[in-house]
C-alpha cells in the first residue's frame, strides 16, 4: 500500500515540478561557456602546454650543454679584446661572487688550471663572453648546476641531514564535519587532483579534517596545481608535513 502511495507521490511530484530556468539565465550560462571556449590562446603545441614547456626546457638545456664543452677557449683569461662590452664589468663581479662562495680547498683542479693557464686562442664567438655568467664553480663530486646559480657550495654538507624532510601539500579546506571534507575530496578528485583527508585532533572531542591536495615533489608543480585550483574557484594554502 505504502509503495503505491510512494509511486503516486513521485508521479504527483513529476507533474508539479516543471519550472525551468528563465531565458536570461540560460543565455548567461551559455555565454560563459562560449567565452571560455573562445578564450583559447594559439600555441604551436596546441592545448598541450606541458609538452611545449618541456620542449623549451630541452632546447635550453641542449644549448647550455653545447656551450659547456671541455676544450673551449679560455674565457677566464684576461680580456684581450680592445672593446669589452659594458656588461663585462658586471660579469666579472658575478664571477668574483661565485669564486668567493666556493670553498678554496674544494675548488676543482681543472678550474684552477683553467685560471692559471696562459691565454688560449682568442675566443671567436661573442657568446663565450656570456658563459662565465652562467657557469658556477662547485666542489668536486658535487653535481654541476648549469641551469641556475644555486649556491650548492654554500650549503654545508651536514645541513641537509639536520633539517627534517617535509612533504608539500595544498590545503583546500578544514572541516569539523567529516561529510563535508569527504564531499570536497570527491569534488577535487572529480577535477583530477590527487587528494587526501588528514584527521587532526587536539583532544578526543575536538577533531578536524584537513582536505589536502598532493603531495608535491617541488614548488613548481605545487604552483601549477595551485593555479589550476584557483581557476576552478578553490582557494588553497601551502602546508608542509613532516615525513
Amino acid at each position, binding site marked *: 500500500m505504502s509503495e503505491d502511495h510512494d509511486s503516486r*507521490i513521485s508521479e*504527483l511530484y513529476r507533474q508539479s515540478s516543471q519550472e525551468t530556468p528563465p531565458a536570461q539565465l540560460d543565455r548567461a550560462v551559455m555565454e560563459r561557456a*562560449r567565452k571560455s571556449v573562445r578564450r583559447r590562446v594559439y600555441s604551436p603545441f596546441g592545448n598541450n602546454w606541458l609538452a611545449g614547456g618541456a620542449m623549451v626546457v630541452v632546447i635550453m638545456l641542449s644549448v647550455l650543454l653545447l656551450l659547456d664543452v671541455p676544450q673551449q677557449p679560455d674565457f677566464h683569461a684576461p680580456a684581450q679584446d680592445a672593446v669589452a662590452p659594458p656588461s663585462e664589468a658586471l660579469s666579472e663581479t658575478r664571477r668574483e661572487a661565485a669564486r668567493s662562495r666556493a670553498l678554496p680547498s674544494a675548488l676543482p683542479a681543472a678550474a684552477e688550471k683553467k685560471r692559471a693557464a696562459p691565454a688560449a686562442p682568442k675566443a671567436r664567438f661573442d657568446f663565450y663572453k656570456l658563459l662565465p655568467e652562467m657557469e658556477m664553480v662547485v666542489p668536486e663530486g658535487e653535481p654541476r648546476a648549469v641551469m641556475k646559480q644555486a649556491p650548492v657550495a654554500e650549503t654545508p654538507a651536514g645541513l641537509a641531514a639536520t633539517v627534517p624532510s617535509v612533504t608539500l601539500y595544498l590545503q583546500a579546506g578544514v572541516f569539523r564535519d567529516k561529510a563535508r571534507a569527504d564531499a570536497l575530496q570527491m569534488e577535487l578528485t572529480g*577535477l*583530477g*587532483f590527487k587528494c587526501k583527508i588528514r584527521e587532526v585532533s587536539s583532544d578526543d572531542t575536538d577533531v578536524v579534517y584537513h582536505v589536502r591536495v598532493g603531495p608535491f615533489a617541488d614548488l613548481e608543480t605545487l604552483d601549477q596545481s595551485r593555479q589550476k585550483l584557483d581557476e576552478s574557484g578553490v582557494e588553497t594554502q601551502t602546508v608542509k608535513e613532516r615525513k
Partner: protein
Amino acid sequence: MVDKVIKPGSDEDLMLRYAGGDLKAFQRLYEHHRGGLYRYFLRQSNRSVAEELFQDVWARVIQSRKRYRPKAAFKTWLYTLAHNRLVDHWRREGARPVEQSAADGDCSETVIPDTNPGPQRLVDLRDCLEQLLQLVSGLPDVQRQTFLLRHEAGMSLAEIAEAMSTRAETAKSRLRYAMQRLRAAIAKECLEG
C-alpha cells in the same frame, strides 16, 4: 580509481568534448540538466538565490572543463558541486533553509506539521501539486536533498550516497523517511489519484 568507459553521447562524453572546445556538446549537456538542477535549488531556497547558485555551479563546470576526469558519472559530480555550493550558502547565510523559505515571499508556509494535519478538502489536482511542492520544501535538509536527487536528478541510491558523501544505506533510509513524511502530510484525496 579507474576511469569509466565513456559511451558516445553520454554526459561524460559531452563534457570531454566540451573540454576539447565543442560548444554544442556543452549545449546538449546543459539541456540535459538545466531543469533538474534549477529545481533542485528552487525547492531549497528562494528564486533569486536559486538562480545565483545555479549559475555558480555551471560556472564551476565551465571553469573546470579542461581538468574534468570522468571518474564518476557527470551527474554525480554536478550534483556534488550543487550540494557543496548549497551547504556553503547556508553556512555563509547562517540560516536554516526551512526558516529561510518560510520567511521568503516566494515560498510561504513551507514548514510542515509533524503529524498528519487531518483530512483536507482539496478540490482538484492543482491543489495536490501545490501542497506537495510545499511539503517537499518543508522536509528536513537531508531528506529533502535525498528526495530531490532522486526525483530531479534521477539518481540511484548509490549515486545519491556519493554526491552527499554518505553510505547507500543512509541514503535509502533518508529517502524512506522523506516519503513517509510526505505520505503522512499530504491530503488523502491526493493519494487516491
